[in-house]
């Protein structure tokens, strides 16, 4: 039975309220409201240190994999209760993007490292399978150091798309074997092309969603790289799109400059790509012309959210950059 239907039918919703105590806050609006648990993660900071926590994915066993740029353990693996199951990785000083892809029943990770100018495909135990290097002999790139990839997305046919968000803002399209197929995007359409995801909510028109973080926009590109649509999200410096069901979830790094302003939050878009909830931020509203009123942080539940993971119960886990070396926070959907 679907989780939210079960709760409605039983009529049980724990509020954490007891006589004389103030109720726990609920963050978010509309149908997407959450309680926050900042102590979800049980990691021992000495045994499993983190610097910046960048991105997270969920494997089919229910384990959460996370990138951190602390080379003592670039990949941390958690269970859903926040306990640490394991860790590996010492060779990713800039460990950033993390994508999980099921290839004929076996799961692989794609790690981007903008410091090493490379994308690395690994097994879940860290064994390196393949690397995707900078696109040589192209008009767009003249040297390895110009390529500073932040994210990957995998096409249904196994092609690998790489968002060069800290380099030249192109999306570089490789075949599964690493052959260069296409380059699109770039500074004409993207300012800080931080994240990319495959969008198959409309099965007849699949598309690539690419965040243009510095100018608060989500760009939709065709599978061939033609711009289809621009979705402005004023006040939201969105990191990467996370598509789950009909919705897109975002970690919003900040709502106003400077980059270390500590004004981040998370937000959820509906099937029409309208913001329907912004936990710890202002209520999303659109004017008569369909323009979103700029969002802003209202509750300092986060500093700089960098990624969200949505689990099967539609809870969210939020990893943060430059926030005091904190572990992910859990948002439990109510």
């Amino acid at each position, binding site marked *: 039975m679907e989780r939210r239907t079960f709760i409605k039918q039983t009529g049980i919703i724990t509020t954490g309220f007891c006589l004389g105590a103030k109720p726990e806050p609920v963050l978010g609006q509309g149908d997407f409201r959450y309680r926050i648990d*900042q102590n979800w993660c049980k990691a021992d900071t000495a045994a499993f240190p983190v610097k910046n926590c960048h991105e997270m994915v969920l494997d089919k066993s229910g384990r959460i994999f996370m990138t951190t740029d602390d080379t003592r353990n670039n990949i941390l693996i958690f269970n859903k209760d926040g306990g640490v199951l394991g860790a590996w990785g010492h060779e990713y000083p800039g460990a950033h993007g993390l994508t999980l892809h099921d290839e004929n029943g076996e799961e692989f990770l794609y790690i981007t490292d903008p410091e090493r100018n490379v994308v690395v495909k690994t097994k879940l135990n860290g064994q390196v399978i393949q690397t995707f290097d900078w696109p040589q002999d192209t008009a767009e790139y003249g040297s390895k150091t110009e390529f500073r990839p932040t994210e990957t997305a995998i096409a249904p046919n196994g092609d690998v798309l790489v968002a060069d968000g800290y380099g030249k803002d192109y999306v570089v399209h490789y075949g599964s074997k690493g052959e260069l197929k296409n380059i699109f995007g770039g500074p004409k359409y993207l300012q800080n092309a931080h994240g990319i995801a495959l969008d198959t909510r409309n099965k007849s028109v699949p598309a690539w969603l690419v965040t243009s973080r510095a100018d608060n926009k989500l760009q939709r590109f065709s599978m061939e790289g033609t711009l289809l649509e621009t979705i402005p999200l004023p006040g939201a410096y969105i990191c990467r799109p996370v598509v789950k069901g009909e919705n897109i979830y975002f970690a919003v790094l900040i709502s106003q400059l*400077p980059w*270390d302003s500590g004004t981040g939050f998370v937000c959820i878009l509906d099937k029409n790509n309208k913001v329907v909830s912004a936990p710890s931020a202002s209520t999303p509203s659109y004017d008569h012309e369909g323009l979103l009123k700029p969002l802003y942080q209202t509750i300092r539940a986060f500093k700089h959210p960098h990624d969200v993971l949505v689990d099967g119960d539609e809870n969210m886990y939020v990893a943060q950059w430059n926030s005091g070396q904190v572990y992910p926070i859990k948002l439990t959907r109510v």
Partner: protein
Amino acid sequence: MLHGQTLQLAPPQVTAGNVFFRDKTTVSMEFDMENATIHYTFKDNPTEKSSTYTLPLDIRQSVTLKAIACHPDFLPSAVVERYYVAAKYEPDSMILFSAADEKYPGNGGSSLCDLKKGSTNLHDGNWLGFSGRTVITEAFFTNDIVCKHLVVSTLSDYNSWILPFRKVVIEGKNRCGNWVEIGQWQAVDSSKMISQKAEYANYHSIKLKRLKTRKIRIKIEPFGNLPPGHPGAGAPAWLFLDEIIFQ
């Protein structure tokens, strides 16, 4: 799980028609949360007992506005502070004798007297950027003025290699046609000029000696080389200016 009282509110949103103004500017504040209130002062840090914001505020003189958001279920926000600068005199023109960098040209000298505040986008046309050079500019007034204070608006962003100026010398042309010094400011401790936190509204007010004049010259010396420990140590720090206000 955390209880509401351990979660802090973010500061209210504060917007103004103009940060720099001649006669009046109107300030609006907003905070989207049911049962939240905004409190403000113009002097000490506000508390829940300070004036409650209900309607836009008309500001007619230079002030520092301080505001917080409050809600019974959350900790009060940090104080948000905004400085609004009144200009008494507006030059007919300002000539820039030191060329700004071609990447940040603004609109030449007129950018410094157009009462437009630069944003966090350094390419918005309101900022003049200089690398490693003293800035010399002259302001011309049709009628004699007696300028009591000069306010120089700059920005500081350590991670973007931008630091405030180190010294300002202000001269006025007297009736004999000679330039005489009427004001000066110099950093006493340069280490205190450096902050890791970016500050896009960095104002220095300098008191001036009385002189009736139609021409004022301002020389602004940059910070100098970036300090040891900075990724660009040894290279000149950038200097950015968006306005000079004559009060």
